[in-house]
């Protein structure tokens, strides 16, 4: 109802006048105000902290072996050792570097591809838009992980670069779709037409008028893409399709399964890396609860009906 809108508008008026880039500060403040995304931000900060200071935090080197094999938890090795005689805790700590950076880089790259395609798709009309529509829908329905598996199989142990590339190729479509819808909504707003009347060139309309109004949706797309990137990377590593010599949560699980940790009863070897992946993914999902609430006011926390 109009009244409600007006009320929100006038209450916003009461707040401090925001300056340039204020929408980013406001985004952060709104996220912090939501308890779910606050929790997510805290968990994410912990993981980033561990990833950056891994060499200081880890008791041993990542691939330092020569300890007793398949040892249970002890004072020297809190989480025990692997079948190759490496310290599990150190591997977990170093493994965070891979997941955090793959999530960040692949998430960022997918988001950039999504922005470029989504915005131009939303802005152009006619046959070109139909073609993009078809391609995006194709990438949306093609199952991502099997495609990744097949590409990874053809490329034969391409390592992390290959994994990131495959994730980006298969992961941009969803974001592009969401951004396109938003671009179309914004495009029909008068201020975009007005910018044309002000003599603004097309690129300026897209980057100065439309893009900044999609901050929360882009942020949501980024966190979503990062989440699926982290899960996909772990999945590929677990299948042994990545570089199995690096230390990541996925490869820890790969080696654990190959060395029959299930039979030897070393449950911590299975439990801990998976929990780390789940917690990292959860932190991003939680942050997105807050981001969703910004993009869609109806999802904001409020009293029950």
């Amino acid at each position, binding site marked *: *109802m*109009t*009244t*409600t809108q*007006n*009320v*929100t*508008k*006038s*209450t*916003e*008026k*009461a*707040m401090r*006048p*925001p300056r340039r880039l204020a*929408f980013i500060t406001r985004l952060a403040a*709104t996220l912090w*105000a939501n308890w779910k995304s606050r929790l997510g931000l805290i968990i994410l900060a912990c993981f980033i902290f561990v990833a950056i200071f891994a060499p200081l935090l880890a008791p041993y080197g990542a691939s330092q072996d020569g300890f007793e094999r398949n040892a249970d938890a002890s004072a020297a090795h809190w989480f025990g050792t692997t079948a190759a005689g490496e310290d599990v805790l150190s591997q977990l700590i170093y493994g965070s570097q891979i997941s955090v950076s793959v999530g960040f880089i692949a998430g960022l790259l997918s988001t950039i591809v999504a922005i470029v395609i989504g915005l131009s798709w939303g802005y152009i009309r006619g046959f070109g838009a139909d073609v993009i529509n078809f391609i995006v829908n194709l990438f949306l329905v093609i199952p991502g992980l099997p495609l990744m598996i097949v590409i990874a199989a053809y490329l034969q142990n391409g390592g992390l670069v290959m994994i990131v590339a495959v994730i980006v190729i298969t992961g941009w479509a969803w974001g592009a779709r969401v951004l396109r819808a938003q671009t179309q909504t914004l495009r029909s*707003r*008068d*201020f975009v*037409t*007005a*910018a*044309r*009347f*002000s*003599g*603004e060139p097309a690129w300026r309309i897209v980057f100065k*008028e439309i893009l*900044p*109004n999609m901050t929360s949706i882009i942020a949501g797309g980024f966190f979503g893409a990062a989440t699926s990137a982290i899960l996909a990377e772990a999945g590929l590593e677990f299948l042994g399709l990545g570089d199995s010599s690096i230390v990541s949560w996925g490869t820890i699980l790969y080696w654990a399964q190959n060395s029959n940790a299930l039979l030897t009863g070393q449950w911590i070897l299975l439990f801990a890396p998976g929990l780390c992946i789940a917690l990292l993914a959860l932190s991003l999902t939680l942050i997105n609860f807050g981001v969703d609430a910004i993009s869609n006011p109806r999802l*904001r*926390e*409020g*009293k*029950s*009906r």
Partner: protein
Amino acid sequence: MNHILEVKDLSVVYESNGFTALQAVDHVSFVLEAGEFVGLVGESGSGKSTLGFAITRLQKPPARTNGGQILFRGKDIRELDVESLRQQRQGGFAMVLQSGMNALNPVRTIRNHFIDIFRAHGHVEKSRWDARQIELIEKVGLSKEALARFPGELSGGMRQRVSIALALSLEPQLMVFDEPTTALDVLVQQAIMTTIKSLQKSEGFTAVLISHDLGVVLESTQRVLVMHEGRIVEDASSAEILQNPQDEYTRMLLSHYADPRAEVVELPGFTERASRDGAGAGKASGTTAAGTTASREGRSADSAIVVDQVSMVYPPPRRGESAITAVDDVSFTLEPGESLALVGASGSGKSTIAKLITGIEKPTSGTVKFGSLDVARLGRGQIRELHRNVQMIFQDPYSALNPLHTVEYTLTRPVVNFGGLRGPQARRRVLELLETVGLAPVEQFAAKLPHQLSGGQRQRVVIARALASNPQVLIADEPVSMLDVSLRAGVLALLEELREQWGVSMLYITHDLLSARLVTENIMVLNGGRVVERGNTAQVLQHPEDDYTIRLLDAVPNPARAWGAAV
């Protein structure tokens, strides 16, 4: 006394996380007698809709009633539990929402909507369901075929009629209509108000009409409550409000109504153009033209916009439907310095003409020329040249400004792009523009973001942006229709003043004949894409010849006319 509703000291607050609480309704008290038709009037943000939702117990968070009583037939409905409240809605109080067109479930047929209500309350025997549905749907002026339709298959006006019929099926004693015609076309609005009035008489329910339009309310109701900033500032019979308004705010609202057919039309801060132009006949009068040339020295001959036999046909919206002819063989000339009104109901093609003139769309046939430029055949760079001279003022000030840019940024862009000014020079020009549209202190307004401005201030920024390129022509597409009544005159006066001073010509697109009378010399009435009447504005409005023009004139709310006869 036969009170049906007694509201005592009612307060409603909006509380949402991270925002300061806002008292939308502030200790309001009033009484409704059985069978009365009462209007509740206020401008946006006055709390009228919030009050309407509160007294029907439909408010949702973040709104919360935080004090007072709502006595419906002597019983406080604030104390009812969910189930008794639900039962109370049959034979109790019903509500028709502002956005009646969205008030129907898109995946259920109209018949099912009725059946849901009959099932929920059991007040109609199953054997009578069919008969009752037909009876109700015919009462609101629809045929029984509508029952089998999905909401998406009906027009906006028909959907609003259906929601009135649904509310009627509850056999309510009190009906609250929340802006029941706002989103609809002028002519449809009038027809629906007529239906509501006659239903209220025949069914005998007590009715509350919530509206921002004092004119509409005075025409239909017996008593009016005027609301301002959460309080009821005046509560009097319609005749009394019209003849002897007590509150200053009511008087201010009333002063903004006038009859476009009158000999002399006056609004606050506005001298009427017919009297000022003397005879008022013909094209731009000599005096105006002289002023124009003087203030536009240094510019070569001004160009006219010549629209010649233009038609615009849109492809059918769905397969199997016919193409839509939005503009049908329209020709006219907008002379330099002329102010021309383009009038019609929605769908008459007036906004399409604006798009064709500004090069946003290309006509299916015919030509549009600005000076020597053939608008329909412009390349990208030339469109820019066109926009240097032909600028647009938009309808919705809330959508016409990018919420993330300061006023200064918004105004700097055309100054940089068209004026070639940079740095301090550009800034000086921006401040000048703000001064021109009356937004002082200019430094402060330059730094503001759109959400810190009121609707009227936003529209002034939009006008300033249109002026930044020093254009020859302004296309104003319903520039005041989204503004509160009290703000309209100010913006119109500004437009008129600028036009006189700068000598720009203006195409004024509107459905509002009163504003057309105030700011234009000549008028064209459009119906279904065709021009049905044209001539001098004052003459056409005082002596309309075409049927459609007469119907548009009749649809203008005119409290004085309605009560003039009765009193």
